[in-house]
């Protein structure tokens, strides 16, 4: 078991990420609760929407699909954007914890202590796991507030399961980012590579409609750009899909630990110069 101080170190390094995420959720909530009702009551807004080209209306607001004219489906917009931002934030944290530490040279400071590299790696995985859980809670709480106030017919317990399932996927993306960072040691390159990889996974999942990943199972349908209606499909992903994603998390974490254990930390740039 890694020392708790190592976990605290990772959280301290990325507290801004948690603040940004909480701020995002708060802003969307405030927009939804305060600005949005005012916006949709304006006749100019309806005229503006109907004047948009068809393809843009499809994205921005069209009754029956992504209808920004109702609170329920405005939540869909939130649900659509939040996984992307959650993913991007965790992806950056994951890469920073491996390749970033190596590039900055702070990894050398850690490696001078009598701690196994795999213990260091495990500490980072655990710390990111806890971060994902906290961010998931913030997402659940902010969405729940909107659901309650807007009187949307969605169960909060069901929402919790959805967020947990999505969180597991985000966590897997974080472990992939760590693995790529551990293999390459280059932060920007790893971020790009991981983002591309996740896009490919997303596309394959969307095309084949395997239903393994929560993104297509019940959160976001990447091809219709529509959150599958909460009211129509009030279901969660099958339990076996959770096992698949959890297995992927274990596999990528173990691979990353092995990659780090074998890696030569040969050159570094100090962040103080």
């Amino acid at each position: 078991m890694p020392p708790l101080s190592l976990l605290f170190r990772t959280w301290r390094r990325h507290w801004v990420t948690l603040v940004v995420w909480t701020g995002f959720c708060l802003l969307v909530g405030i927009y939804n609760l305060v600005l949005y009702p005012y916006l949709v009551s304006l006749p100019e807004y309806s005229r503006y929407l109907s004047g948009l080209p068809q393809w843009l209306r499809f994205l921005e607001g069209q009754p029956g699909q992504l209808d920004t004219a109702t609170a329920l489906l405005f939540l869909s917009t939130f649900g659509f954007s939040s996984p992307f931002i959650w993913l991007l934030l965790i992806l950056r944290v994951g890469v920073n914890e491996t390749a970033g530490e190596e590039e900055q040279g702070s990894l050398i400071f850690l490696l001078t202590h009598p701690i196994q590299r795999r213990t260091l790696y495990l500490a980072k995985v655990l710390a990111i796991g806890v971060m994902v859980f906290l961010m998931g809670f913030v997402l659940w709480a902010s969405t729940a507030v909107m659901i309650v106030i807007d009187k949307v017919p969605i169960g909060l317990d069901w929402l919790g399961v959805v967020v947990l399932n999505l969180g597991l996927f985000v966590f897997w993306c974080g472990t992939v980012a760590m693995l790529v960072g551990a293999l390459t040691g280059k932060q920007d390159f790893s971020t790009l590579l991981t983002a591309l990889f996740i896009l490919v996974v997303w596309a394959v999942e969307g095309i084949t409609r395997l239903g393994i990943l929560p993104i297509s199972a019940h959160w976001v349908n990447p091809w219709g750009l529509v959150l599958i209606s909460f009211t129509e499909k009030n279901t969660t992903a099958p339990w076996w899909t959770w096992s698949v994603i959890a297995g992927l998390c274990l596999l990528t974490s173990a691979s990353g630990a092995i990659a780090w254990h074998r890696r030569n930390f040969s050159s570094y740039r100090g962040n103080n110069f």
Partner: protein
Amino acid sequence: MDDKKTPLQSVKIDRLKIAFGKKVVINNFTLSMNAGDHLALLGVDGSGKSTLIHTLMGFIRPAGGLAQIAGFDCWKQSIDIRRCCGYVPAVPALDKDLSINDILNFSARLEGKPTDWDSVQSLVDRFHLDPRKRVASLSLMEVKFTAFILCFMTHPQIVLLDDPFLSLDDDGTDVLNVFLEEAFSEGQSLFAAISHPSQAGRVFKKIALLQEGELVSIVDSERLAGQIVRKVEVIFGAKPPLEQLVKSGMIRQLSWEGTTLRCCVVGPSGPFLNAINGYDVLDIKSREADLEETIRAVYLEGKDASS
């Protein structure tokens, strides 16, 4: 191995090879150090000094050969190495948002054993650091001194220093020299990479010369510091016979381009000037040889003099 005060054997490096892909950085390097020895590793940038120290600390896996500290294999038993060794990197990178106090506490927790905080405080005082200051607000020299405290707070028996004087000003260099002299009078072993002979100071009696990943020679530090080598270019009206000068060992690395002589003059320049005095000298240029030229002229003569 639970304590850094456990008696230790020597550093032992035997036919060590380090390669990154196809590029061989260290080749056939053999060196041994007894407990209590103070050895400086001198070489130009890129000669493999830092790579060698990183290998000893277990950051890099050797491609061949043996690297041991205190009988522990540097790669396979790197945890034991870190328990008995202290290390100061050339460019310490510490968490910027932490204060010196926070970093010392964090490091002590990772060490996992009781820390003598009185001795840590004396180190902080010695380096004139304010432990409440955050790393982001420290000067380069203060960051380096913090790294020294982190290294010495565990009382290591062997200390590996990578370019210890980098980023120190004259006062800082003096403070560090005095500190090292006192620290190593207690029998600690010291292995340091330095980039200039003058940095050997009074601490290092022996200097290992490293060039392009190979050990050239181990020399007395005072001898190397006193070595005067000048790079000289002389344009003659006609090519003179200089066999006697070459035989005397006064000039090395000799090459001709037409009637222009380029060579290294080892020792005082007077005898050389006297020797060419009788010939038709059109022009003469001279400068102090850099470290690489000095090593080549003095220690590699006969190995690659033609180069």
